[in-house]
């Protein structure tokens, strides 16, 4: 009995020691970069590519001589599509691994989950995916699109160029579609679209039986006015959705679908036949023709050893984010989080669609908006491009709760949600 007690105690103590002891200090000759993307679970399908992208970017930077004379060292962890685990892993990266900055997250909920950790430990997160906006954190740099850099230009295109009069806003039931559709609904009504010409529909994650909904869309679209579907349907549910559209005989000329989360990578996993002609709005397409993009594609395909692998928008976002971080660290001369955060604002780096993207004081970036039609080889035919760069807007002008709110992280305001009416700063820097 006594023996057993001491045995258990010693085992436990050893376990604890191993937990504690593994918190070794970062070696001085490398700079650690955290990669926080799910490699298993439901989100692995999208996020694994981003992990590889980061590994490639870091490898290339190291070939160029590293950063500040040191080599970069990627630290990969797997939050396994489990939201509390994201927070745990973020803490592990920052506290235990002492990474200089983290590139990661895909879903909004994962970002929300890690947000308090980054704010508490004052670290840096680069978030590469289009999202619903309504957020600006001191510690997060949003390199993906906000609704105004993706959704609104797409709707403008459909309204002005295609002459769409009736709208179906279809989305998966979570924050991004809810917010985007709210913004779009307000925007469309602003433009004089009647309430009965807008149909809003939400489906659960991974919805696979689209028969009834597609049939409803078909009926809605047969009322004699040009109809379009604005889809914020999440990844996995898209394949059965488009298949059903094709089978029920709805072609892109009749009822075009414009999607915000269908990119080259998603198209690679499905039979593109029924999708030809449907649209997507992004800030980057693989089919953009310029040298920088071709170089990037070559580098990617060589790195991943697959000459059919595609590139997509979130990859470009990481490309931009990583280069911004590199430039900011060089400018600041240190990887110290506070200094880099300050240096990042105003940094401008080339993007892959032939221009420059700049980090703005609200921690969002400027990007061109491209609209493409899906081709049968899984690439996009670009049919429209905004004339200039569109700056990402953290707080939408079309939502009652946020139209008076602005974000500016420069001194003296230093606030992510400053209400211009009440003159109050709430959220992170609440006093």
């Amino acid at each position: 009995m006594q023996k057993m007690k001491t045995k258990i105690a010693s085992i436990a103590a050893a376990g604890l020691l191993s937990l504690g002891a593994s918190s070794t200090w970062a070696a001085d000759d490398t700079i650690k970069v955290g990669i926080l993307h799910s490699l298993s679970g439901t989100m692995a399908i999208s996020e694994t590519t981003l992990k590889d992208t980061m590994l490639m970017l870091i490898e290339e930077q190291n070939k160029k001589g590293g950063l500040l004379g040191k080599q970069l060292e990627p630290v990969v962890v797997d939050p396994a599509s489990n939201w509390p685990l994201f927070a745990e892993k973020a803490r592990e990266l920052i506290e235990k691994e002492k990474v200089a900055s983290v590139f990661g997250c895909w879903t909004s909920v994962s970002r929300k989950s890690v947000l308090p950790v980054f704010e508490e430990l004052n670290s840096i997160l680069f978030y590469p995916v289009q999202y619903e906006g309504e957020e600006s954190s001191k510690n997060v740099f949003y390199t993906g699109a906000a609704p105004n850099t993706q959704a609104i230009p797409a709707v403008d295109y459909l309204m002005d160029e295609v002459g769409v009069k009736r709208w179906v806003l279809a989305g998966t039931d979570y924050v991004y579609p809810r917010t985007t559709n709210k913004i779009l609904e307000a925007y469309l009504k602003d433009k004089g679209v009647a309430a009965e010409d807008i149909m809003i529909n939400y489906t659960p994650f991974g919805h696979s039986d689209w028969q009834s909904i597609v049939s409803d869309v078909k009926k809605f679209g047969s009322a004699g006015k040009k109809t379009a579907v604005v889809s914020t349907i999440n990844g996995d549910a898209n394949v059965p959705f488009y298949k059903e559209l094709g089978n029920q005989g709805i072609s892109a000329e009749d009822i075009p679908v414009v999607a915000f989360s269908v990119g080259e990578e998603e198209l690679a996993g499905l039979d593109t036949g029924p999708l030809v002609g449907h649209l997507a709005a992004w800030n980057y397409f693989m089919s953009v023709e310029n040298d920088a993009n071709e170089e990037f594609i070559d580098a990617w395909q060589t790195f991943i050893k697959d000459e059919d692998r595609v590139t997509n928008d979130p990859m470009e976002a990481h490309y931009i984010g990583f280069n911004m971080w590199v430039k900011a660290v060089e400018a600041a001369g240190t990887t110290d989080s506070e200094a880099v955060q300050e240096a990042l604002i105003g940094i401008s780096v080339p993007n892959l669609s032939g221009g420059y993207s700049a980090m703005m004081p609200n921690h969002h970036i400027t990007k061109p908006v491209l609209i493409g039609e899906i081709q049968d080889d899984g690439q996009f035919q670009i049919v429209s491009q905004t004339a200039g760069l569109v700056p990402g807007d953290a707080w939408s002008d079309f939502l009652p709760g946020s139209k008076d709110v602005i974000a500016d992280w420069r001194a003296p305001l230093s606030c992510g949600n400053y209400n211009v009416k009440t003159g109050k700063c709430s959220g992170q820097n609440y006093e």
Partner: protein
Amino acid sequence: MSTSTMNPVFDKQTNVFLSVLSVISVLVIACNQLFPADSALHIPTYTVTLLGKYLCYALLAVAIDLIWGYMGILSLGHGAFFALGGYAMGMYLMRQIGERGVYGDPLLPDFMVFLNWSELPWFWHGFDMFWFAALMVVLVPGVLAFVFGWLTFRSRVTGVYLSIITQALTYALMLAFYRNEMGFGGNNGLTDFKDLLGFDLQSDATRLWLFLLSAIALGLGYIACRFIVASKLGRVSLAIRDAESRTRFIGYKVENVKLWVFTFSAMLAGIAGALYVPQVGIINPNEFSPLNSIEMVVWVALGGRATLYGAVVGAIVVNYAKTYFTGALPEVWLFALGGLFVVTTIFLPKGIAGLLKKKEARA
């Protein structure tokens, strides 16, 4: 198992377990407080919180072991009770944010502001008071378990059927909580908590307290379960597990016994959930996922059923493995975890506890 003799509440294993638990808890806090940050013996607060999380899982595992190991009810829906307790606590924490939310609304949580809700839904009232929230932490899972059990046990739904409908229960709740109309924050759930009873959740002191509270809750929960197991109720439970019809014929009210123990177990799970949420900082519908509930059962099986301490060991081992493998071997950790489950069920039918017992018997 020595079921025929009268068991004292504080038997040998219980004493060992409780002393190990208290020694470790004190040790962890001491290592965190006494040693400077660069000492090899220092345990960072990060690790303390992690351990606190494991302790919550352990309490949940004890709750599952109570009904599965001792009464033969395999619930594949205990994650639901855990999550409900978590949501009750999450709602309290949400209300505590008040004006510090991103929109600065004194009453409505952020997610309601951007869904354009103008007033607080009725079921959110009262959660600004801690005592009310604390009551709900046990009451909501308890009532649900009571109603569910009352229906189910009286209809004599048993075995596999019972397991599958508990799964249906948690699945239905997951789908419901994913809906944004429900008013629980949809997929994002509840997050961005600030403080608990006025203590800043991001401060190290609060973290240590939460860890300590989890340890105390686990200890008390363990004793309570021991108390049930050692009582007459516990022996009737065992009888039900081994021969339900016979127990009924002898004259015991099988339904009532099952119902009360099941409800108690759900309440314990709720408490575990409530302690879990402030430590991980988020509660979302994924906690209701049926796969999570299966995983919880696996902890108990791995640790060893009908021992209680086995459940604790199982929960901690699996979760530590998860933490370790997701960091060290991100690409292959599912192989390791899956393999672990297969190997233990085949070669260690009595779990780790069985292994320890065998060793002890030999020694």
